[in-house]
């Protein structure tokens, strides 16, 4: 295997996102992460739908398919089923995945087909120039709702967990290291890995994630969870989460008799998704936003199931060739 670098994954096409767009950081993180997988370049396929994020495959020097709006999970499913050895990545946005493509999105998660979905969530429609999206905060004023939206936004993590998703991670576009780490873990995970990337649209929804990502607040507003580790955060890493009844509460070590032992330890592998859903819903100012791998459980994958059936049927088949099938059942001879 040739040792690859980020340059090997960079295509010759000019990148055309707006200057300052969060997508650049995601692209760079991906180009840096893939060489670490030590796989052949020809084994990667990037599939996307429509939207700003969906231009991503053009900039990756891998096999790529820029398809139609909302349907990328179905294309990616076809690619994976046709050749299960490939590493398949779906790039999508909040409009593509959760509005027009909502149905395919939940069904991919339900089946747990072994693909990785990168959801670029910027809470706005970029390519169609600034309409609200299914994740836009309620009340936001846009061209298509100048008086403020009356829509409740979707929560991608709740959709994923509701659809029995086996892997959910969240990251911000300002944390390239964490992005790389999560991309690698997502590829390791067998099943549909959903990565929600809070991505800034510098033109139509600038700073929508500032309460989470701004330098001056991020230490208090982000909790990076790690499997098997206590969920601590804050500038002095002395704040943590506890369960109080059925609710999560933020506490400070040393106050009210709280010690590090009282802090919840993250278990991404727990099959019961209740706590994962609660963690993923946390938002400032009351809570820090949870980042990192929130859920990663083992569940049979759709592609493995289908392949196992094929193998079994091939071994136990009555017919090995099409001709045998055509001549099976009731036949009769006509003499000329």
């Amino acid at each position, binding site marked *: 295997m040739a040792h690859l670098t980020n340059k090997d994954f960079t295509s010759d096409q000019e990148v055309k996102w707006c200057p300052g767009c969060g997508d650049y950081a995601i692209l760079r993180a991906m180009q840096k992460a893939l060489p670490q997988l030590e796989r052949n370049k020809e084994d990667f*396929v990037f599939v996307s739908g429509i939207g700003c994020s969906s231009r991503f495959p053009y900039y990756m020097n891998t096999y790529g*398919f820029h398809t139609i709006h909302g349907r990328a999970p179905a294309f990616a499913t076809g690619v994976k089923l046709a050749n299960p*050895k490939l590493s398949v990545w779906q790039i999508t946005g909040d409009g593509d995945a959760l509005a027009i493509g909502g149905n395919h999105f939940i069904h991919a998660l339900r089946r747990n087909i072994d693909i990785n979905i990168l959801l670029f969530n910027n809470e706005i429609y970029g390519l169609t120039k600034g309409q609200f999206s299914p994740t836009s905060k309620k009340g936001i004023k846009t061209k298509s709702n100048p008086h403020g939206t009356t829509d409740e936004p979707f929560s991608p993590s709740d959709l994923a967990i509701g659809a029995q998703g086996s892997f959910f991670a969240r990251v911000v576009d300002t944390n390239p290291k964490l992005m790389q780490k999560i991309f690698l873990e997502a590829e390791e995970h067998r099943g549909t890995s959903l990565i929600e990337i809070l991505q800034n649209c510098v033109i139509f929804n600038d700073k929508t994630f500032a309460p989470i990502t701004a330098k001056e607040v991020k230490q208090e507003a982000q909790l990076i969870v790690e499997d098997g580790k206590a969920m601590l955060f804050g500038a002095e890493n002395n704040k943590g989460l506890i369960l109080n009844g059925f609710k999560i509460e933020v506490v400070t070590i040393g106050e009210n008799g709280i010690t590090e032992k009282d802090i919840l330890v993250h278990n991404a592998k727990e099959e019961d998704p209740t706590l994962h859903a609660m963690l993923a819903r946390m938002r400032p100012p009351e809570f820090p936003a949870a980042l990192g791998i929130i859920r990663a459980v083992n569940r049979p994958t759709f592609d493995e199931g289908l392949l196992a059936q094929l193998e079994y049927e091939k071994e136990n088949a009555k017919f090995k060739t099409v001709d045998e099938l055509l001549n099976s059942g009731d036949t009769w001879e006509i003499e000329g």
Partner: protein
Amino acid sequence: MDKTTKVVDLEKVVIKFAGDSGDGMQLTGSQFTDTSALLGNDLATFPDFPAEIRAPQGTVAGVSGFQIHIGRIDINTPGDIADVLVAMNPAALKANKKSIKKGGTIIVNIDSFTKRDLEKAGYENSPLEDNSFEGYNIIEAPITKLTRETLKDSGLDGKSVGRSKNMFALGIVYWMFNRPMEQTEQFLKKKFEKKPEVVEANIKVMHAGYNFADTIEALPSSYTVLSANLRKGTYRNVMGNQATAWGFLAAAERANKELFLGSYPITPASDILHELAKHKNLGVKTFQAEDEIAGICSAIGASFTGSLAITTTSGPGLALKGEALGLAIMTELPLVVVDVQRGGPSTGLPTKTEQSDLFQALYGRNGESPAVILASSTPANCFDWAYMASKITLEHNTPVVLLSDGYLGNGAEPWNIKSTKDMPSITPNIATEGEEYLPYKRDDRTLSRKLALPGTKGMEHRLGGLEKEDITGNVSYDGDNHEKMCRIREEKINRIANIIPKQEVFGKEKGDLLVVGWGGTHGSLYSAVEKLQKEGLNISLSQFNYINPLPKNTAEILNNFKKIVVCELNNGQFVNYLRMKNQGVIFNQYNKLQGLPFTTSELEDYFKTLLKN
């Protein structure tokens, strides 16, 4: 059995089984079909069932029918109208009043002609007692009573006993047409392998029906239809949807490709999915997607990755697949879309046939987006057209829409079994590792681009729905390039006319009247034209399977006739397509939109009128 009754030798006969949709008429009909096929009859069948799985019992809406035409001579249609009707209740009789020949034989289950049954069917008085069916040979068989009597010691519950009634009717018809019962006995033993008591009951009831027919004097004579004069070979029965599935299996094997089907259930196309799903042993991957769109999109994904990829649907589903089909055209990937047409628009008539989607297949997409359009024309040749669709799509790397219809898909006929070795070879157009690869560089002759499959070293490239730059395949918004690419995509389809056979004419190459049809109307048009030819009329038929592109000699054929009539089960889609392609030629048209095939008699009458004027 010793037969003292007169046996009448028939050339052909049409039998229709009709009853409640829960009465097992489809099974009864298909059993009669299989037995007749094994005796060497030529045949054609047509199931006619309601859209509702179980409409209210005893009502006309709930009547399910199965028509079979068997003969010693060449049979091309399921028959216009039945010689023998089996009516399990008054509703079945009412629904089929028009489909039984004057003076024909009607076997009724007289036990289901109570006041209540009559009311449900909308009869005030029994049609058997007024003169509604005067002149018909009515056989009143107490089927329910005798079935119960036969099974009184079987230990079966009332419901199971009731379900066996259809076997009594089948026994009667087996006797009438001198058929042996062994085939059905074998079938029952296999079907109810785990329920020997059900097997025994069904066989007993069938024999009871057979003996009943032998005993009563109501049956004036029994009939026999001798073997047809079919060509030498090994035969089996096939249904159109089954043959379509098998054509794809054969093509995948010959092309050395995995077969991938991405589909969503829809009447009347689902049987193709069911058939292929059975054959995982042959390496077929079937994917029942979450909707029609995901069906086609998964197929395109699999095609990009190197499978022979297909998607199956009917009219409403084709509408949903339109955008994705456009992507396959833009990315020039192989894909076969099978549309088993049904009555439209909207949900329309799901279980009835119509040549509804020709325009949709030709034009139902945004932009200039030409696709190859093929049409099957008999249940058995669905095999050949599925194979040809695969060959064209893999060799030319362009999507093909294959039009079948409900009548073909559910119809059955004997098939002289083909060997995959006898089918033409298929050479997919794919780049091999090591060669210089430019995604949109083309073959000079066919204009087909080469595919490079993911996993092939050194050929990483990106495809997509944005306009492609000629040769490189990079995204291009350049106007001149766009025009050029639109023309190339069109020309690529047109050049397929160079490799397809010439359009044929049945009858004289020149003459007074040319009947033109396409797809599934072949049987009825052929039968009508053949009959008139025998009467000495100057009439020929040309049935089209290649719709886009049309065979090269199409205009030449059209110009050789004084009159042309294009017959279609729609409001004139093919005729208008031909008008557009053949300006100046005058076309007559004959259209029917009743969800039913043409009858040969209506066609004969119309052709005679045209020839007179």
